[in-house]
């Protein structure tokens, strides 16, 4: 079958190494077309009647795009209209080399059966392989390979008896390539020409990415960026140390400032500050860039100015003004040695990290114009210029846009329209936007995934009972927040005959239902976590499992994974046992219900007794944990009361913590720690653990400064010292101060992360003061717990292992995904709270509330309103008003406005209202109402007469 000819391909890599590789050419690579009789392909991909109606090509045809067309116009190729496309191996390899995300997308398209995309392995086909000629560049060779393959196809298909007038059409944007192709008798079009010729699909034109030819016409503006250096120069520069490579992070509050995180050797990483439009040099958030450090005398401090690019039109007049303002702000402050940060400028882009962005269209002032600016929802992304003919229909809608490029003579990047999400301000649309922006997979589960669910009606079988401990007789109950349907933990406690206590934590046995490697498992692994938004839950596993079969509801038999301790009355563990079990929960309580049972002395049933025992032990455990230096931190959390009909928020309150909350938490911690020890003992190389690194001391600067302003000292030498000094930090007559301080302390902390024990040596969980920790107790909503369940099941011989579980590299990769998903889920949750806060205030009008200053910035203060757990910025600079006199003292930090100094933790009164002047970024606007500063503070809103009256009396 193999008829091969040995070819020698020489490539040079790095130095002067000659690599010789064999290259076999084959004659059993089929063309993949239905019409062909010569090829023995059993399941041809390309259809016989490949019809895309077009003015230019009236005959059935297959498309062959070249590399640049695939990279630039992937949005077009993904459209369901475009079918029967031949992707050459040459093209696929080049795409793979140049852009990983697009490679993934084109591969998805190839796998989509509906699309009829065929990959032709032309590099190994005997008749289409070509060798690079003398003096020919690699690119030219690839272009020629594409032409040869296209030529081969057209000749090959013409030989087929019933091909009719089936032809191949080459799509290329390269003029030179096009000419040469035409000369050799191929049908060739530019991508724009072809897409524009398509009948019945005008909106596809909007998705066309702008290519370099067109860009020149559009931009007449004066802003000219410095040229980006070519990659070879960048690499040389990085090697010699003149340039640094890092990830670009745009500043959320100031569009003219960014940081570049440079990853040094090992864990060392530094930050380089970049300021000013020209120095930013067209880098976009998340790009990998090369920066050059400026000489030390040009170093600056990060500005505390809040600056939003909200110029309403395309012109640049306001830009300059804004830039002047920044410069002024920078100049006004003489350079202080300590605050100066290494400053640099972007000299080149190593890798773009563009994705489609959600946002809104900013209509052009000229009516019939087709060019518009698009404002992304993420403030770190610059505005994008797009071309569309449907501007009027897109007005007020949330749309998605992809960036195509950023030429050096254009103020904004150029992009194209991808799709519309719905009208802005709408709760559904906004939720969709925040899910997309945070990369949360939220599509319904596919049929493939659902096919792995157990068949209903489901019941526990004899076999299950045989291998599991039967704990149905125990008085198990669950305690959860109200309205919780995915109950993954339940508890019990009973007295043993020897006077000791038996305590059990029973966790839903999700790994019984989700078997490794199947589609259900893969989907759960990719989702990583359930995302809780206000009034909406995006499940990690299908609802049948999350709310029914796995959920440990009361009075039904459920499978569980139990962790059972024998403890003495001092809560010292005498023995630990893990087992798969069957339980029957006697009650599912809310925290409040459980609390009531404990407090109500008249109740003496089994459940209540069990709860009291648990509560007693939990208090001892908590005391011991705090003794060891566990931190109690605080962050304002709010709950919405959601209207059951409209799903709009009707009330807002901060979450209350009860004793029972900490009771459940205490046992979950204990179970997690016990399991972590067990799986690490058993699998020292591949245990999935969770760690919380100690923050570097510099993180605490803000906390120490803030405390010292009240005459308090915070010790940060150890977690224990920090916990103690936080406990001692009290100010007379200011009970909320301690909470504020804890909120600040929370922001100093590092993120806790999952990791694989074989890949790391530091296991410490700083916040919990535990040497080892993992997540075991919520397998319904976290994938990490499923893995831990599997590890533990193997450790107690309850289940068999599988290859990926024992592979530490695969585990590490999984951990990375889980960490990313958790972070994004957290951000999405916060964004959802913010969205609902806005909806809430929309219906409330203007409110007047008391708050505390959390941070002081150069032109603003950030105020926290404890009642709503809401944080907002009060600006002291306004576009249409003359600025008040501001002076900022870095040391305090203190901001003095018209002789009134603002310190951290000062109590202020602010009015809260919803600012919907910019529908894209509806925001909560806060304005100062007390202390009264003429020209700065606003008067009390008229809607609140009680507040106004005392003022009049004075």
């Amino acid at each position, binding site marked *: 079958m*193999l008829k091969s000819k*040995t070819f020698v391909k020489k490539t040079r890599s790095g130095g002067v190494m*000659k*690599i*010789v*590789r*064999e290259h*076999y050419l084959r004659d059993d690579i089929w063309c993949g077309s239905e019409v062909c009789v010569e090829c023995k392909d059993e399941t041809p991909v390309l259809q016989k009647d490949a019809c895309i109606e077009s003015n230019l090509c009236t005959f059935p045809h297959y498309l062959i795009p070249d590399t640049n067309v695939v990279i630039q116009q992937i949005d077009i190729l993904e459209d369901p209209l475009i079918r029967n496309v031949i992707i050459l191996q040459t093209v696929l390899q080049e795409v793979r080399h140049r852009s990983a995300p697009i490679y993934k997308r084109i591969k998805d398209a190839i796998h989509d059966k509906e699309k009829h995309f065929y990959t032709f392995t032309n590099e190994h086909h005997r008749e289409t392989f070509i060798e690079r000629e003398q003096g020919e560049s690699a690119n030219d060779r690839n272009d020629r390979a594409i032409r040869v393959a296209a030529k081969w196809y057209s000749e090959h298909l013409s030989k087929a008896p019933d091909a009719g007038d089936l032809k191949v059409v080459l799509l290329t944007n390269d003029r030179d390539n096009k000419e040469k192709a035409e000369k050799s008798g191929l049908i060739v079009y530019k991508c724009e020409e072809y897409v524009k010729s398509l009948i019945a699909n005008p909106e596809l034109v909007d998705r066309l990415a702008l290519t370099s030819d067109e860009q020149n016409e559009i931009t007449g503006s004066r802003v000219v960026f410095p040229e980006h250096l070519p990659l070879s120069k960048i690499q040389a520069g990085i090697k010699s140390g003149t340039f640094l490579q890092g990830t670009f992070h745009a500043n959320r509050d100031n569009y003219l400032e960014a940081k570049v995180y440079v990853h040094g050797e090992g864990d060392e990483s530094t930050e380089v500050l970049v300021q000013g439009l020209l120095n930013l040099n067209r880098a976009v958030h998340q790009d990998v860039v090369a920066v050059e450090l400026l000489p030390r005398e040009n170093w600056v401090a990060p500005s505390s100015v809040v600056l939003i690019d909200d110029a309403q039109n395309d012109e640049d007049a306001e830009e300059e003004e804004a830039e002047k303002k920044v410069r002024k702000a920078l100049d006004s402050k003489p350079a202080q040695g300590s605050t100066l940060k290494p400053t640099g400028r972007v000299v080149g882009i190593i890798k773009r990290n563009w994705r489609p962005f959600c946002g809104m269209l900013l209509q052009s002032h000229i009516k019939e114009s087709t060019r518009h600016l698009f404002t992304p929802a993420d403030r770190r992304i610059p505005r994008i210029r797009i071309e569309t003919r449907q501007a009027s229909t897109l007005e007020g809608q949330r749309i998605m846009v992809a960036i195509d490029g950023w030429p050096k003579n254009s103020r904004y990047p150029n992009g194209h329209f991808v799709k519309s999400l719905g009208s802005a301000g709408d709760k559904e649309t906004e939720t969709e936007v925040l899910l997309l922006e945070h990369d949360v997979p939220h599509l319904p589960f596919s049929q493939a995934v659902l096919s792995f669910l157990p068949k209903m009606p489901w019941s526990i079988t004899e076999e299950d009972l045989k291998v599991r401990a039967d704990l149905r007789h125990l008085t198990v109950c669950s305690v959860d927040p109200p309205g919780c349907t995915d109950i993954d933990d339940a508890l019990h406690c009973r007295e043993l005959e020897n006077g000791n206590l038996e305590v059990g934590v029973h966790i839903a046995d999700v790994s019984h239902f989700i078997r490794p490697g199947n589609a259900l498992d893969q989907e759960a692994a990719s989702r990583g976590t359930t995302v809780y938004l206000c009034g909406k839950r995006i499940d990690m596993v299908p609802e049948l499992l999350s709310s029914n079969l796995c959920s440990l509801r009361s009075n039904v038999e459920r499978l569980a994974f139990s962790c059972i301790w024998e403890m003495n009355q001092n809560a010292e563990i005498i023995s630990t046992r893990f087992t798969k079990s069957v339980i029957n929960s006697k009650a599912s309580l809310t925290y409040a219900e459980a609390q009531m049972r404990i407090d109500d002395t008249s109740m003496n049933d089994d459940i209540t007794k069990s709860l009291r025992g648990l509560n007693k032990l939990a208090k001892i455990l908590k005391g011991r944990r705090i003794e060891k230096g566990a931190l109690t931190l605080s962050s304002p959390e709010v709950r919405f009361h959601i209207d059951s009909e409209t799903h709009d928020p009707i009330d807002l309150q901060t979450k209350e913590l009860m004793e029972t909350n900490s009771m459940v938490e205490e046992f979950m911690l204990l179970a997690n720690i016990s399991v972590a020890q067990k799986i690490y003992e058993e699998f020292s190389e591949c245990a999935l653990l969770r760690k919380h690194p100690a923050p570097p001391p510099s993180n605490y600067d803000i906390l120490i400064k803030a405390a010292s302003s009240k005459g308090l000292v915070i010790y940060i030498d150890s977690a224990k010292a920090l916990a103690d000094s936080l406990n001692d930090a009290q100010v007379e007559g200011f009970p909320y101060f301690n909470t504020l301080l804890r909120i600040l302390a929370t922001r100093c902390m590092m993120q806790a992360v999952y990791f694989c024990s074989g890949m790391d040596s530091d296991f410490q969980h700083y916040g919990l003061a535990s040497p080892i920790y993992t997540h075991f107790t919520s397998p319904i909503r976290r994938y990490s717990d499923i893995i831990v369940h599997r590890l533990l099941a193997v450790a107690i011989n309850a289940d068999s292992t599988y*290859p990926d579980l024992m*592979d530490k590299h695969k585990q590490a990769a999984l951990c990375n995904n889980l960490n990313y998903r958790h972070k994004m889920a957290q951000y999405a949750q916060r964004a959802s709270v913010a969205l609902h806060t806005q909806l809430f205030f929309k219906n409330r009008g203007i409110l007047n509330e008391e708050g505390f200053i959390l941070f002081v910035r150069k032109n603003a203060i950030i105020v926290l309103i404890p009642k709503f757990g809401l944080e907002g910025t009060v600006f002291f600079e306004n576009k249409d008003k003359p600025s008040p006199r501001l002076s900022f003292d870095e040391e305090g930090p203190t901001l003095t406005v018209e002789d009134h100094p603002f310190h951290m933790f000062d109590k202020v009164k602010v009015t809260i209202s919803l600012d919907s002047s910019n529908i894209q970024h509806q925001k909560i606007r806060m304005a100062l109402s007390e202390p009264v500063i003429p020209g700065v503070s606003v008067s009390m809103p008229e809607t609140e007469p009680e507040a106004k009256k005392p003022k009049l009396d004075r």
Partner: protein
Amino acid sequence: MAGVELLSDQGYRLDGRKASELRKVQARMGVFAQADGSAYIEQGNTKALAVVYGPHEVRGSRSRTMHDRAVINCQYSMATFSTAERKRRPHGDRKSSEMSLHLKQTFEAAVLTQLYPRSQIDIYVKILQSDGGNYSACVNAATLALVDAGIPMRDYVCACTAGFVEDTPLADLCHAEESGGGTTLALALLPRSRHIALVQMDARLHQDHLDMLMEAAAEACRGLSKVLDGVVRQHLQEVSVLTRD
């Protein structure tokens, strides 16, 4: 930039082979007149030369003499010009001593050593060009050289490597595939009896995958044995034509 893709979605490997296909094998026997037996083999770009002396009296220390069978002495070396980077390879470095030992074990299992008590058989192999699968090329070359020398063996010893990429076993790895990460298994097989003369694997592999990988390697070995058999028959024909006159 991503690393190389060892196996494409269409099922083609870097050099255009499918997962179970071997590289092109070419071999010649009797390349040196002075030696008792010799052979040269090319497996793709891996080229090896094997020379056999003996059986003869035990040279050197008499203490090594076996009273019931022959001693097999193997020496493996690589030419300085065999890899992309020119490198002096001193005699008896750890890698080549290990390889020599492996070869010795392989052929002790295959050669009928009990027919030649108190004697010695020398096998010298040299890699002239290296492109993955050095061990298997050496074994295959040495087998042909032993046949050429007329030393009786239980069967041909055929060796081949197999690797494991994306849950698919790949047969006969080239250098790029060997160094591209993943597991490599080298198997020396006596194809007719399906006895294993030597199996070696030094990376981690889950037990569940081992059978699949072994089967792929064995299949490759059987394929090779056909080729080697063809070479031997061809050689015999040529020789017999010469001696007929």
